[in-house]
């Protein structure tokens, strides 16, 4: 490990762009200036770029190309899915089921809908962060119009039982949305096999550019089906199957497409490589530091996520010490935001506020090397030791 380098272990927050993606984006910034809605050749050239990107992205989740719509972000895709389904189906019912560990991009649209009279159930999770499909089934009523449960959790990496959830949603004729921002491109996803109706994803989590996302919308490809079970939440031109007006971000979308292509190519090898790195990272950290534990499920977790609890110390202090040691990681503590409450995810899996504040998320990616993991493993024990020396809550 060269000491002048910076070890980036925060891939769950965002990823560096793949150099091949940068080439594609740059090329289209320079050459593909036409508006994809224009009938002239410059426009049609841009439309072809969208077509290709849509094809690559659809292929990664076994979707039909026409069922993919581009958005500005994963957050926007979540908002369209939740608010769009709620408004379209409010005559059928007013009940939405989600989990208590969703990303804010799902949690807060749901809370907004509550103010408008919708009834939202936040399903509890077990100590690993897993939703119980039996509980989900029990909560479904005649009023239930939408189930929104994330594919994998952004903080603790737990992969939800999407197969069971999709089946329950289908059997009960309820629309099923999943926020797959963390899972997309990292683990195999088949929207048809899993009975997923709506799926959100984001480019910047898979080595693509920021400011680009997508929503998979089942059966929305054919014009007759447009808006059948979902309304747009923004109004303007007829772009993206009438669901998301505004001229598409062509270079960004081209980059998203390329990023998806690379993910599909590398997925089988990358999964195994990252699981090996992750498991060594977890085992060695827990072995070398007393009173430490793993948050999330030991097996049903994303290949790139480790989330540690270190008793008697606070996450942000660990983060700052790691940063001084040229390592970027993340914490579950919300102390940097205006609210001082600990992470709702760590609280939902049963951690005390004090323990929740002592969590550290280490997320790896395509460019993470064995040497970088070694470097982290060498740096972390003395940091925890020093912080414990000045901690009054040490046993």
């Amino acid at each position, binding site marked *: 490990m060269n000491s002048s380098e910076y070890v980036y272990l925060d891939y769950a927050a965002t990823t560096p762009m793949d150099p091949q993606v940068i080439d594609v984006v740059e090329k289209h910034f320079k050459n593909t200036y036409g508006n994809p809605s224009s009938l002239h050749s410059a426009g049609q050239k841009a439309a072809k770029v969208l077509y290709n990107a849509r094809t690559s992205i659809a292929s990664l989740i076994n979707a039909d190309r026409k069922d993919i719509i581009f958005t500005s972000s994963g957050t926007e895709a979540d908002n369209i899915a939740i608010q769009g389904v709620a408004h379209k189906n409010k005559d059928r019912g007013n009940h939405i089921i989600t989990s208590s560990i969703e990303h804010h991009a799902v949690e807060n649209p749901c809370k907004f809908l509550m103010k408008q009279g919708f009834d939202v159930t936040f399903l509890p999770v077990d100590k690993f962060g897993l939703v119980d499909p039996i509980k989900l089934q029990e909560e479904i009523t005649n009023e239930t119009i939408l189930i929104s449960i994330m594919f994998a959790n952004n903080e603790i990496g737990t992969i939800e039982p999407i197969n069971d959830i999709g089946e329950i949603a289908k059997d009960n004729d309820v629309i099923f949305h999943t926020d797959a921002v963390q899972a997309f491109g990292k683990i195999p996803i088949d929207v048809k096999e899993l009975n997923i109706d709506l799926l959100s994803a984001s480019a910047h989590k898979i080595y693509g550019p920021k400011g680009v996302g997508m929503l998979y919308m089942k059966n929305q490809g054919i014009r007759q089906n447009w808006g059948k079970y979902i309304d747009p939440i923004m109004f303007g031109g007829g772009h993206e199957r009438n669901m998301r007006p505004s001229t598409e971000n062509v270079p960004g979308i081209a980059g998203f497409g390329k990023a998806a292509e690379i993910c599909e190519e590398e997925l089988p090898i990358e999964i195994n490589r990252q699981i090996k790195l992750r498991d060594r990272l977890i085992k060695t950290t827990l072995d070398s530091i007393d009173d430490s534990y793993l948050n999330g499920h030991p097996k049903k977790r994303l290949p790139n996520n480790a989330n540690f609890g270190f008793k008697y110390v606070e996450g942000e202090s660990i983060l700052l010490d790691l940063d001084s040691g040229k390592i970027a990681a993340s914490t579950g503590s919300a*102390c940097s935001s205006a609210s001082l409450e600990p992470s709702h995810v760590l609280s939902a899996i049963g951690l005390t506020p004090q323990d929740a504040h002592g969590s550290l998320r280490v997320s790896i990616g395509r460019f993470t090397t064995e040497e970088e993991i070694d470097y982290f493993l060498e740096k972390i024990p003395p940091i925890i030791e020093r912080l414990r020396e000045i901690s*009054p809550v040490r046993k």
Partner: protein
Amino acid sequence: MGELKDADAVGETGNPVCGDISYIYIKVKEVDGVEIIDDISFQTFGCGAAIATSSMITELAKGMSLDDAMKIKREDVAEALSGLPPQKMHCSNLAADGLHNAIKIYREKREA
């Protein structure tokens, strides 16, 4: 930094929900009839700002008379650190309260 073994008083303060707990240890001696803080240290469970404010208050208060140390306000701690973001201002409260609690406890002990 760390526990002060022969401290005369310990001031505890904190809020475990926001993640901060702080102990301020003081050792007092009398010089020309004035009680001054001879030695001071801290232990803090908290974010970077909480640790920084705890550390700064020990720097500010060392050698001060107890009366002067009681007058240290949270703004003084924040200012000594060249400012804190608004959402971290409560961290400087933690440090000032910890010191004031330590002094109060010391005085109660003396009167007892």
